């Protein structure tokens, strides 16, 4: 398993690297000193895991995550960020408090390696966002790591896209066209100019005006499939 350490402090990186040496399954493939450096190294080294400091010069750890299309497993390392960590849904997060307790680190690393073993069987193409990939979403004071399979609907709002998952509907800074290219077409379907739907969340389909279709999602949302897309849609489902 490949890991990247992102921290602006040399000593903090050194200390974490030293603490990680006993874990043979984990290989520290690089270190980044700020968010920009990290973005580059993530693209280049494709780590499975990043240890991420939240407060860094320039962009913060959160800013970095927002820019990434697909977010690797993240372990936050922070000295004292009660406030920042509270923003997360409780179970969605691994974090280590500096100075890092070796026992705590061991538990965290073991858990992550365990998880990745189960997952690695379905290793997907890196260019396409599969339903098991997760994205980082920040909306005001709240943050989530969202597995794409949990997202029912993507709705275009100018340069932003609104995600619908559980009872949340935060915005992310991406265009719908961009997502359409990146999302796995086996699961996600472009219904019309404004919407991408998750096929696994479809409840019912009925004919609509002009040869289009009206898709009802399990949460009650109704989305129109344009005539042009309806042809594609029927093709796909008949397969």
């Amino acid at each position, binding site marked *: 398993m490949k890991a990247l350490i992102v921290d602006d402090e040399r*000593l*903090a990186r050194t*200390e974490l690297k030293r603490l990680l040496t006993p874990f043979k399954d984990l290989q520290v493939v690089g270190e980044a*000193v700020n968010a920009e450096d990290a973005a580059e190294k993530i693209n280049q080294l494709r780590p499975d895991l990043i240890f991420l400091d939240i407060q860094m*010069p320039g962009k913060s750890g959160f800013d970095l995550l927002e820019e990434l299309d697909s977010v690797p497993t993240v372990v936050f390392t922070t000295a*004292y*960020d009660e406030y920042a960590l509270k923003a997360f849904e409780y179970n969605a997060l691994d974090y280590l408090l500096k100075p*890092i307790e070796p026992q705590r680190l061991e538990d965290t690393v073991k858990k992550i390696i365990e998880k990745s073993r189960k997952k690695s069987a379905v290793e997907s193409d890196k260019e396409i966002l599969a339903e098991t990939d997760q994205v980082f979403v920040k909306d005001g004071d709240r943050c989530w790591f969202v597995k794409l399979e949990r997202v029912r609907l993507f709705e275009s709002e100018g340069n932003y896209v609104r995600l619908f998952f559980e009872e949340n509907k935060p915005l992310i800074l991406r265009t719908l066209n961009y997502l359409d290219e990146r999302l796995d077409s086996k699961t996600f379907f472009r219904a019309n100019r404004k919407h991408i739907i998750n096929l696994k969340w479809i409840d019912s389909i009925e004919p609509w005006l002009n040869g289009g279709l009206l898709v009802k999602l399990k949460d009650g949302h109704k989305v129109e499939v344009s005539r042009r897309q309806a042809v594609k849609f029927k093709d796909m489902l008949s397969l």
Partner: protein
Amino acid sequence: MNTDFKITQNFNTAVKKEKSTGKMKLSRKKIYWISQLTGWSLFVLINLLVIASFEELPWQRILVWIFLGATGIFFTHLLRRIIRKKSWLGLPLKKIIPRVITASFITGIVIYALVFAASYFSGTMNRDELTVGMPIAGAINTSGVIFLWSLIYFAVHYLENYKKKEIESLIWEAAVKDYELKTLKSQLNPHFMFNAMNSIRALIEEDREAAKAALTKLSNILRYSLQMEKMESVPLEEEMETVRNYLDLERIRFEDRLKYTLYVDPQSENIEIPPMMIQTLVENGIKHGISKRTTGGEIDVKTSLQIANGKSQLKIEIENSGHLSANELKNSSGFGINNTKHRLNLLYGEEAKFSLKNINGEKVLAEVEIPIHASTG
């Protein structure tokens, strides 16, 4: 919420103190009985003196008057019990007036009826001269006296309440100010503490001597900040020593991304300043200035003496690399700035000044001016 609670607590203890000092004086009960006895005795005595100057005063009549005084005390005491039991003092004036008038009238009639009976049967009254108007006039007269009694009773309580409220609001104000000063005394930023400890742990492997020195500095800062919680002011020199320790520790973290210079005017070394004030501003400079820049930066602290409007002042300048947006400058609550301003205001009023501004878009300058008082200078 927490704040309110604490203030209320301080306030309660303050009020308790006030109450316990009240006990040292005469108890309220005693004052009441002394007033009752002297009031009614004077009333009877004056009446007797006036009567005696006009006509002959047989001893039976004196007894009737003393009896009047006694019933007066008894029934007004009864009236007081009703007033207290029904808590008339808490009622609005509109409701009190009709109640007091009615009560006075009833009490007056009862007292007069008893006195009338006493004088009738004791033979002090000339039964031949008795007219219908006489008892009516007597009853109204007595009611007037009781009404006067009630008036005094209520007036005393209103005055007392007013005074108590005034004292309470003063105590409250003092408690709030005291509490504000306590909370405004800045504490060490925990983020800094834990980062420093993390750096020190890494240093133990890398450079043991440096790790030892860093640990000593960290203890010094911690000790200083704990001691300062109890103090109103501290010599400038001591505060600057802590700032130096602090910056040295931050240098371990930031390495060559942080440079600093400190200059203390030798004449200003012993001037008393609010503890942790410079420290907080330096921490802010690092947190919102230098730590945001990938290339790091510089922080300079300079103190000097100056004379403004004929008064000598201490001037502290903290300049750091960085830039605050207009919004950040305006909305500086997150920068410990409001905190500093408020604290200076509580300690020195209008005499202290604080300002924060951008310089050439490259640097941020925080300036503090504190009056030097003869006693501390």
